[in-house]
């Protein structure tokens, strides 16, 4: 089965298959979305104007039974940052698109809102656009449930919510989990509004009847798959009963809080003893007592299974409460109650909002006087303002930087317009170097220096040492490769420590794509992805001065470590210099 590009034109309401140009043949995931965006989208276009495009691409091995390989990349020019964006999600939809032979899905053209919303329905050998207006203005839990009822359990979905309909630059793209909840997100960068502004509200795919994936070298693939699976199994973080499997990503709350790097109340402090109440240990205990299901997987291929379903008695099920969401909607808003955080997370999922950006936005709103820190009920009411489309809601839906300006707040934790995730760079400096220099805006996943600085994965580096250009660069390159392969980034915990795992990962890519990459080649491949992304950003108007953290992080020291972000500009410029 040759993979194809599916091009959907929303002006003409057409969907047609195209041959894959030779130059794209070795690409997948982030490498492919970023390459197509760089080639087809004018860098100076308006992100919600007629010339921007949304590109989705399963990873190179996605659709196979390689372990933890169910990732789907989404790209475009970001409505939040104004730069290139790739955000990826783990979802059953990823493997279905891979098995349907969709190497990339490009959505172009733009319909006015008045001319209605559509759903793109993809099945083996067919793609059609169907009216989807009936779901406009309604929550995504209701919509996904209704769509699943209409199209069947074998169909997977993604979609934009009310936040996207409001053209919010903090609107994520929601994907279903295996049971159909809109709880898996390509959340960052406003890609929901990019899709919905084309007139496309949902994508649905059913891979029944699709042929098997073709392998360039099945033997190499199988050998690699076994090596990688063994490494994931053997590592303390990724293995059965390991940290991720037992406590989920929220296992990080306690350790990041203890080192003084868990931002509290809009990045005004790095530690609070209350944080233990929202930790992975506490959540696992509450789940064991009946508040949900753990472990759980985001996609059928996953063997790490770090996910869960948070479902307290008498409440509607949420899906996973990730570390980032628990922090953003919790500690960063002074809220230390998992039940309240669960409700806030559900509201974000329902409205189609990125939990990180929304949590940091609520925190600046709290600092700006719209609510008190710690008031979970008031935070929920702010989210309802988004649902109702009030003027306040329309401010909140546009992200942290926009809200801070509207509410007169000067402590604005953003880079390139995107808010920082759950690690304060004054206490963990390498991740600050990544926040500053990645083409994505503040994004921890782009080069997760925390792994080395705090967890000792891939070596050890003092989190307070400001010389981190080399570490961040190496991680950004290897991450760009992993994001292109289709593997979950959490496989890195194992493959950074177990060399055979990394070899196996590269072998599986070779087995599918017919390449002969070595591990070193894979890192170079990642470097090329970054080069294209940086070139796009430069053409869009970004310069060195955008590769900086906000001023307050150099001026205000962070308790309890008493540190400022003291990485010199020259060190930041060395990352790609």
């Amino acid at each position, binding site marked *: 089965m040759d993979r194809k590009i599916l091009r959907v034109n929303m002006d003409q309401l057409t969907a047609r298959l195209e041959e894959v140009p030779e130059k794209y043949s070795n690409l997948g995931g982030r490498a492919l979305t970023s390459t197509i965006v760089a080639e087809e989208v004018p860098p100076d276009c308006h992100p919600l104007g007629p010339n921007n495009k949304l590109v989705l691409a399963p990873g190179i091995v996605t659709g196979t039974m390689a372990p933890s390989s169910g990732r789907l990349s989404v790209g475009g020019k970001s409505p939040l940052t104004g730069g290139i964006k790739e955000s990826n999600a783990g979802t059953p939809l990823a493997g279905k698109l891979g098995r349907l032979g969709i190497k990339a899905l490009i959505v172009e053209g733009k319909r006015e809102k008045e001319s209605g919303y559509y759903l793109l329905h993809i099945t083996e050998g067919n793609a059609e656009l169907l009216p989807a207006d009936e779901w406009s203005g309604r929550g995504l839990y209701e919509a996904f449930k209704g769509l699943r009822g209409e199209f069947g359990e074998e169909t997977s979905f993604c979609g934009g919510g009310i936040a996207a309909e409001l053209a919010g630059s903090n609107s994520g793209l929601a994907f279903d989990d295996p049971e159909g909840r809109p709880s898996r997100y390509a959340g960052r960068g406003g890609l929901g509004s990019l899709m919905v502004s084309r007139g496309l509200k949902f994508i649905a795919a059913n891979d029944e009847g699709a042929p098997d994936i073709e392998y360039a070298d099945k033997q190499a693939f199988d050998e690699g798959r076994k090596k990688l699976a063994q490494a994931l199994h053997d590592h303390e973080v990724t293995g059965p009963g390991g940290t991720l499997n037992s406590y989920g990503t929220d*296992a990080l709350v306690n350790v990041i809080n203890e080192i003084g790097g868990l931002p509290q109340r809009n990045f005004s402090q790095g530690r609070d003893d209350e944080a233990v109440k929202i930790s992975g*240990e506490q959540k696992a205990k509450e789940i064991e007592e009946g508040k949900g299901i753990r472990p759980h997987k985001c996609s059928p291929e996953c063997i790490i299974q770090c996910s869960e379903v948070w479902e307290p008695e008498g409440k509607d099920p949420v899906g996973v409460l990730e570390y980032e969401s628990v922090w953003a909607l919790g500690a960063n808003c002074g809220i230390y109650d998992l039940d309240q955080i669960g409700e806030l997370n559900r509201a974000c999922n329902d409205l189609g909002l990125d939990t990180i950006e929304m949590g940091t936005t609520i925190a600046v709103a709290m600092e700006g006087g719209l609510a008190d820190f710690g008031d979970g009920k008031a935070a929920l009411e702010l989210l309802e303002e988004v649902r109702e489309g009030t003027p306040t809601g329309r401010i909140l839906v546009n992200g942290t930087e926009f809200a801070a300006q509207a509410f007169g707040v000067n402590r604005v934790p953003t880079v390139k317009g995107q808010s920082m995730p759950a690690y304060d760079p004054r206490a963990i400096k390498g991740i600050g170097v990544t926040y500053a220099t990645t083409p994505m805006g503040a994004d921890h996943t782009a080069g997760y220096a925390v792994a080395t600085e*705090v967890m*000792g994965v891939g*070596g050890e580096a003092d989190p307070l040492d400001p010389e981190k250009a080399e570490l961040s660069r190496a991680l950004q390159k*290897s991450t760009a490769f992993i994001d292109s392969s289709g593997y979950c980034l*959490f496989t890195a915990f194992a493959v950074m420590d177990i*060399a055979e795992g990394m070899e196996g990962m590269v072998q599986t890519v070779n087995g599918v794509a017919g390449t002969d990459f070595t591990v070193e080649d894979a890192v170079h491949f990642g470097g090329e992805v970054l080069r294209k992304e940086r070139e796009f950003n430069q053409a869009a108007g970004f310069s060195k001065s955008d590769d900086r953290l906000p001023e307050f992080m150099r001026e205000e020291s962070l308790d309890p470590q008493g540190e400022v972000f003291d990485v010199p500009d020259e060190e930041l410029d060395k990352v790609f210099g």
Partner: protein
Amino acid sequence: MTYPMRSWTKSSVRKRTPAIRESGCRKMSVQVKLFGKLQRGLGEKKLQIEARAAGELLEKLWTRCGERAEGAGATLEDEEEMENLTGELRKSIEGNSSELTVLINGRNLTFLDGPQTKLEEGDRVAIFPPTGGG
């Protein structure tokens, strides 16, 4: 190879000079917080331990682990896991790379004076098994 394998980052590790601390002879009573599997392993979230230095504190924890492994109250699912825990504690005691993260006032022992790090009254000690997430 530029991929940050353990060998690569080890060679480029830079440690900050630890703050000079009073090296008194009095044993300090320090509260030790345990997380993740360690809570299960030792059956406690917090322990009060008297010690002058980090190594001595870890040694006492190691002994306590051994007692629990032999006692009826052991809560770990199997001996292998307890063995792993005591093995990792031993590595930390000897100043070797360990899967455990030992924090004194939020600073990793590795970047202080290792097991020789002096303790003071009221120090905040936290010990973690391997962590991950993001």
